[in-house]
């Protein structure tokens, strides 16, 4: 592929991997540059795909079957060789390197774990370290550590054979095996497709926890949009031929489906799905006057007059909301009491807006008290707040700098900024319509979608 960035890239590639500014992420940036996969004269399975996957993020590939999402995934570890284009991982062009060595550096999880049935669980997990010629003790230690990470007791499961495990357990071993050599990138190809819904939900939650601990770059193929919303920092929606219909955060996609195809794919429940994305603590909680039982009632009334409100919340001695009283009721009391307090719906600040709205509607109330840790009163949330929050979500995603992803054939320019940080910037003239933002989000750490960044680079 004619590309002048190749030389530039190889000279700086190594620097990036050890760049101090990226130490908190163990994942690696992946860039697919104008990648095409075609089989013979047929229509290309993936056509001129340029896609940037930020380090330490979970990026979900969704789309109808035959859209090229799995092909794209398998081109990252070159199980499927691209017909043309480049694959760059952490600044290093891996398109021409030995495929087997590349794959040993990339974790790979498939449906039902893909465990080797003739090897024990321990041997399965230790496969890649063994290929990398680790010594026996180190492999054994690592195997036990990983089995514990995926909630399997090494003492019980290490020497079992895959057929002696349930589907969910096999899937966990599959994840442990993929993580064995501590690869920066994890590719997951519909890993939870073959387990029952309850097990799937548990595996998804475990993956979220594992990822919160490890910060790998995860590329996850699924046909289930709900799974994508639940697990993804970013979602790529593919159409036939590997065409990117939309690349954005779950919030962005739910709030602003790029076109009819995305709308159809999201389905009718989009509004509610959006409510499930935001937690109560993320929206503006209104401060309403609240008084602890035993406080002087006259002072309380004065406060309420000052604030111009007619109702106040009564708290118990531990700041937990009991209910609400009117100003008229307070005026008849000497000290604040809970005797006439009326029941009030209460939601936790970690509940989703979906849950909060549900609680208020069931209680027939237009507002609810919000509690923090140990049930302490934080403020109140109203139905209007929730509705405003939806508007806010709709407006907010615009500010997120979306990674590059398009099928126009334009390749982002490679730039080495301060501290040797490599960033890709799109040539604006070429792709002004596709790309709203020309900065490199992972290099600048300007990405608001990120929530966890604490672990040290191994």
């Amino acid at each position, binding site marked *: 592929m004619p590309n002048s960035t190749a030389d530039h890239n190889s000279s700086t590639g190594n620097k990036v991997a050890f760049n101090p500014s990226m130490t908190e992420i163990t994942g690696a940036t992946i860039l697919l540059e104008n990648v095409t996969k075609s089989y013979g004269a047929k229509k290309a399975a993936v056509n001129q795909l340029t896609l940037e996957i930020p380090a330490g993020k979970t990026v979900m590939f969704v789309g109808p079957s035959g859209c090229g999402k799995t092909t794209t995934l398998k081109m990252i570890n070159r*199980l499927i060789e691209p017909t043309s284009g480049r694959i760059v991982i952490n600044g290093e062009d891996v398109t021409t390197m030995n495929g087997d060595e590349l794959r040993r550096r990339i974790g*790979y999880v498939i449906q039902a774990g893909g465990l080797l049935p003739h090897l024990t669980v321990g041997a399965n997990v230790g496969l890649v370290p063994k290929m990398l010629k680790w010594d026996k003790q180190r492999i054994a230690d690592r195997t036990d550590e990983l089995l514990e990470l995926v909630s399997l007791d090494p003492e019980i499961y290490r020497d079992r054979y895959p057929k002696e495990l*349930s589907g969910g*357990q096999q899937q966990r071993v599959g994840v442990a095996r993929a993580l064995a050599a501590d690869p920066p990138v994890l590719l997951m190809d519909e890993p939870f497709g073959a387990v029952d819904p309850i097990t799937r939900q548990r595996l998804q939650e475990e993956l979220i926890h594992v990822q919160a601990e490890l910060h790998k770059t995860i590329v996850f193929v699924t046909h289930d949009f709900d799974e994508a919303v639940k697990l993804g920092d970013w979602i790529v929606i593919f159409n036939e031929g590997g065409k990117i219909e939309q690349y954005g955060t779950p919030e962005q996609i739910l709030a602003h489906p790029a076109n009819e195809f995305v709308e159809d794919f999201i389905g009718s429940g989009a509004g509610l799905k959006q409510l499930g994305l935001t937690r109560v603590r993320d929206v503006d909680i209104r401060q309403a006057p609240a008084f602890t039982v035993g406080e002087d009632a006259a002072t309380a009334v004065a406060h309420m007059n000052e604030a111009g409100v007619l109702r106040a919340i009564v708290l118990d001695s531990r700041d937990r909301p009991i209910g609400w009283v009117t100003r008229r009721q307070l005026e008849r009391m000497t000290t604040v009491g809970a005797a006439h307090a009326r029941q009030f719906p209460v939601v936790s600040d970690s509940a989703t807006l979906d849950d909060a709205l549900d609680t208020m509607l069931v209680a027939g109330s237009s507002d609810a008290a919000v509690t923090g840790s140990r049930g302490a009163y934080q403020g109140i949330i109203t139905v209007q707040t929730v509705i405003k929050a939806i508007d806010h979500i709709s407006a907010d995603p615009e500010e997120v700098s979306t990674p590059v992803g398009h099928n126009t054939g334009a390749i982002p320019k490679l730039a080495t900024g301060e501290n040797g940080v490599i960033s890709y910037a799109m040539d604006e003239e070429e792709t002004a319509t596709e790309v709203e933002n020309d900065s490199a989000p992972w290099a600048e750490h300007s990405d608001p979608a990120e929530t966890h960044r604490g672990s040290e680079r191994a």
Partner: protein
Amino acid sequence: MSSATQEQTETKEATASLTQANSWKGLLIQPIVLLVILGVMFWWMSTADLTETERITLNASYLSTLAWEHLKLTIISAVIVLVTAIPVGILLTRGPFRKLTTPVMALANIGQAAPPVGLIVLFAFWLSFGTTAAIVTLVVYAFLPVLKNTMVGLEAVDKRTIEAARGMGMSPGMVLWKVELPLAVPVMLAGIRTALVLLVGTATLATFINGGGLGLLITTGVNLALDRVLIFGSLLVAVFALAVDWIARVIETAVTPKGL
């Protein structure tokens, strides 16, 4: 994990070890029965009132010579079959050689469909009478089951398992040795066992072209109308074939990977 799942896996494990114990017990019965039959045969031989002509063939030293010849025919042709049919079977399941599957299978089918009696004589005229022609016939005859089962065994390995192995960075060679062949072993060994039994039986024909072996007892019995020699020879070949079958089954049980 809930205790229910644990219980389930434990039961699974228990049944697995139970069936394994059963198969070993089954393996013990066969050689005992064979030894008893053999014992009865030789007791009869040493006590029966045999004629002079019968004595010429039915004596321990002559029988052991014939048995050794028979064994040699079987082993040599078996080794040749194994070192040719297995690699060919592996090759035919590899990408670029797949299209050769149909012609090779056709040839192998002809080899097995042609009556070995005719085949052995044809090869004898071509290669001169003796052991070589006999071995060539045996190889041609036993080639198909080994080839076919090698291919079937390899094709039956779950493609997702192979892909997972590739995805972990195993080279195609490593996948073949560490994943495909171990998983194909049960099917392959079944084919090898069939071939071995076929070989023991068919090796009796070697005597027609002066190739030696236990077939001589049968031809002598037929030609000289010595029914007792004929029956003794046939029984001996049958016991021999079953003994080989038993050895193959022992190997099968020992070599089959545990997790399957």
